[in-house]
């Protein structure tokens, strides 16, 4: 059976902390480089505005949420639209586990932040592959 579902990577839109930027950069790294064609994103604000096309897209496809902090905005706003994310990640946990990969700032996360993005995205890639493969095999 062909699997036409994509994996939507929904980062938190955290603008006030470097972990918000890391979340967004991780989503782009996966979509642009690591999982091209399998993954996409949607605007989180559009989802929270209950835009029908966006809500339908989220409910049809697989969803992985990436939250910068413990407020879990990406996860909660996704759930608010009736979709339980297939996988949810919190950037702060990765940051705590990798203290040598410290983002420098909000606009420019620096080399430490980029290393953190690479570490997180390589974890998520495995999830994407297993989600897409699961359905292909069924």
């Amino acid at each position, binding site marked *: 059976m062909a699997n036409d579902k994509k994996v939507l990577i929904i980062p938190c*839109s955290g603008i006030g902390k470097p972990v918000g930027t890391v979340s967004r*950069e991780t989503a782009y790294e996966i979509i642009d480089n690591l999982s091209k064609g399998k993954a996409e994103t949607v605007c989180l604000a559009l989802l929270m505005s209950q835009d029908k096309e966006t809500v339908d897209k989220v409910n049809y496809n697989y969803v992985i949420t990436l939250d910068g902090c413990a407020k879990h905005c990406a996860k909660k706003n996704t759930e608010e639209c009736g979709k339980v994310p297939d996988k949810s990640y919190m950037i702060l946990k990765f940051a705590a586990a990798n203290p040598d990969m410290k983002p420098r700032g909000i*606009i420019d996360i620096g080399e430490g932040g980029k290393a953190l993005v690479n570490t997180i995205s390589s974890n998520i890639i495995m999830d994407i592959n297993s989600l897409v493969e699961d359905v292909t095999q069924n």
Partner: protein
Amino acid sequence: MDDKDTEIAGRTEIENRIKKVGIVSCSGEDLPEGSISRLATLDILLKRKPFDTTTICLPLFIAGGEGDRLFAKNFPTITIDGCEKLCAKKATEKFSGKVSHSINVRDFIKEGEKPFNKRNLNEKEKEIAGRVADEIEKNVDGILLEEQD
């Protein structure tokens, strides 16, 4: 200004008692104008008006508590949107309160300019962000002036 370790959210109560203008940016992950909106907003928050402005992550209106939802009631607020859907303006007004000014990035894109990068903005896209930041700054100054009167 080096933005190393700068945090906008999580200010102390005393800092928040000083009159500030709230800036709420659309998150626009799925379009280049979202990144332009965010860059312009951060330019104001971190470089041009760090002591006069504050922000909140837009989706926090749903995920956060009552205090987060009072943002637009506590601060005169300017919203920055990346497209005609005006998510920042609509969500702020729905969950928090009426905004003082609403800015759409697309109104600052000149004929022939077509932003396409969502990350690593090029010089032309940064120029657009600069024009949006000019407009935000003008509105922040206007609000602060009104507050003084």
